[in-house]
């Protein structure tokens, strides 16, 4: 069944070229086939469909409780895990060769739309130690590994204790002095372990080019750092021209949503976003805040093509971003507030 999905055609399309109607038609075709495939290949998915109907959005939390896979055990080459906050159970995402190859390819097409076709020297603001277990990838490890394909002369800026590796950084700066480089890392780690060290030492690194960062806004907002502040501060300790955020989740690796030069997150040809009104799950209009539902055309090894997140966001527009990219663009507000329920069963020690 899976072989019938023609992904080759999908990858011939430039990532931000399709207008609303073309994209809708394309997505409908792929989603129909993905639906059919996962129904046939994933029993729990089929049971959900039996009750909820065609192509129901799967709550991301479901991947924590159940092993959802649409491929045989022997086909699984990687298992990715979400970096759940301590004490919480983690999501497990099962990847086969074909799905992970597609994710890598999509990521490369998306990111090179921002960085250019040539592979830039790359500085990862993290420690190599994150990549230790190659079969069980954390979201952080997966992100690093995925992005590392997009650069050359991969260099890690932090040592195993998460301290700045000055020797390596200085060598990197010297080697590529005056050239464009690609920097990548997780928002919170960049702030905590890179920016703050540079700031306290009053140091400015001669790094030119582009920084792409993602994940961990929640932790950052606890420190009361806004997106703008993050961008300005990072530019102040380097010579970077662009600092771009991305939005994505381990459940849909590859088809990430990149922030453009206008500060908008963009859906690519591989992905889409819808905003739901929480009270009825009806689709919200542009500029209405609601629950984020994400589409990715990539996964065939697990039923993650339509996911209901627990994030809140808002569509800002479609096909008309000043940056020139087609498709929807949006912003994310972060996790939805937890519910407070009445009731007599509680744990008094917690209150």
């Amino acid at each position: 069944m899976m072989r019938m999905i023609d992904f080759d055609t999908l990858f011939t399309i430039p990532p931000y070229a399709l207008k609303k109607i073309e994209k809708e038609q394309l997505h409908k075709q792929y989603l129909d086939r993905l639906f059919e495939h996962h129904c046939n290949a994933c029993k729990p998915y089929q049971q959900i469909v039996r009750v909820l109907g065609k192509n129901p959005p799967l709550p991301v939390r479901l991947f924590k409780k159940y092993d959802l896979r649409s491929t045989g055990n022997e086909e699984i080459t990687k298992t990715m895990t979400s970096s759940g906050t301590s004490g919480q159970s983690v999501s497990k995402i099962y990847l086969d060769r074909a799905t992970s190859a597609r994710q890598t390819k999509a990521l490369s097409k998306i990111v090179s739309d921002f960085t250019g076709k040539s592979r830039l020297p790359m500085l990862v603001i993290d420690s190599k130690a994150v990549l230790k277990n190659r079969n069980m990838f954390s979201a952080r490890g997966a992100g690093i590994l995925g992005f590392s394909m997009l650069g050359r002369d991969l260099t890690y800026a932090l040592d195993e204790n998460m301290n700045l590796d000055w020797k390596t950084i200085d060598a990197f700066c010297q080697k590529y002095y005056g050239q464009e480089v690609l920097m990548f890392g997780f928002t919170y780690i960049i702030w905590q372990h890179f920016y703050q060290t540079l700031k306290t030492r009053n140091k400015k690194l001669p790094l030119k080019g582009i920084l792409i960062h993602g994940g961990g806004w929640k932790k950052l907002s606890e420190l009361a750092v806004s997106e703008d502040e993050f961008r300005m501060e990072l530019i102040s300790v380097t010579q970077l021209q662009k600092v771009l955020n991305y939005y994505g989740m381990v459940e849909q690796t590859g088809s990430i949503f990149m922030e453009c030069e206008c500060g908008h997150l963009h859906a690519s040809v591989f992905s889409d976003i819808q905003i739901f009104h929480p009270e009825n799950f009806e689709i919200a209009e542009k500029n209405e805040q609601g629950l984020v539902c994400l589409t990715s055309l990539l996964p065939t090894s697990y039923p993650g093509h339509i996911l209901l997140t627990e994030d809140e966001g808002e569509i800002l527009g479609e096909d008309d971003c000043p940056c020139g990219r087609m498709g929807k663009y949006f912003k994310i507000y972060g996790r939805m507030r937890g519910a407070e329920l009445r009731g007599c069963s509680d744990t008094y020690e917690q209150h």
Partner: protein
Amino acid sequence: MSNIEYLIGSERLAKRVLPVYSDEAINFLSDLSSELLHASNIRAYPDVVSVAYWCRKGNLLKLREVYHSINRLGRGLAFHIAPSNIPVNFVFSYFFSLLAGNANIVRVPSKPFPQVDMICNAFRQVLPQHPQIAERTAFVAYPVNNEITAAFCKEADLRIIWGGDQTVAEMRQYPVKPKCIDIVFADRYSICILNGDAILECTAQDLKNLAENFYNDTYLMDQNACSSPQLILWRNGSNEAQTRFWDAVEKEAGNRYKLQGMTAVEKYIHLCEDAIEYPEIQSFVRQHGNLLYRIQLSELSKVETTALRGKGGYFYEYYLEDLGELCALINAKYQTITYFGVHPEELRQIILNNGLQGVDRIVPIGSAMNIGVFWDGYDIVTMLSRVVCTS
């Protein structure tokens, strides 16, 4: 000890106990009732109204007449752990123990509720005229603190522990006096039995009242109280009866319930989980957006029904061919059956004749939350007092 805030009373409590349903207690509670009913904003809090009504003199005298025994006395000092999510439960716990003749230390909900403030204010007004009661009453608030809890547990002759399985397990860790008696309120499960024929016979007004009562049993507490029905069992009638009932409930909830965004998400997640877990699901009906979820089950023989739990308007439905089927469903976790169009005595006989371990209350729809001296199968005042016999 520091960190303890005495909202009412102090650490000095009287050692001497009172008789059950003492004049002192009844007079005090009656004054408290009038004080509460005169509070300017009481109408905004139906749960405080229910507190005030419950401790009216008439009600208490009636209880005394039925259950009074001159040979019963309190047991000493009672320590109450109230649930933190229900604003008025703590004061009912106190009432029952006071009427049993005990002195009381009550840990009030740590979440701020205006109802708690209202009740404490009324106590402050009335207690000075009732010194005998004042020296037997302490309401305390303290942050999570094992030492304070341990100290109260050590002194207690009785512990009244609300809050479900986990709280009970935690409280059981503390050493107590050898003779200390615990009344514990564990996690329970409740159902509703509806006669479809009776629904079809309802006038529009009857139906509206029924829906309002059903709402009060369920949505009003986010369907998250032990006595809120989770499983709706149908007798007789047809699809038409079910539709008629749920349409009325939907209307009521649409007017009154504020569905939080995250509750809607939780309901949806729960539905997906149920779809995976239960092939018994025959169909699913969603009404008024995400306000009302109905999960219709075709078969219950392999289902542990007490695991069927929804929150915020998430109901399981099953059609009962015969009331006798209840015997196979009911286990020790079952607490309340709310009913409409079914004879309660018929239900009671099923429990009694079959020696079933569960179901302690069979009450009409709308009374699920009405707490009283009989609760969870306990005769609370009797359990909190002791009898002096001669021969």
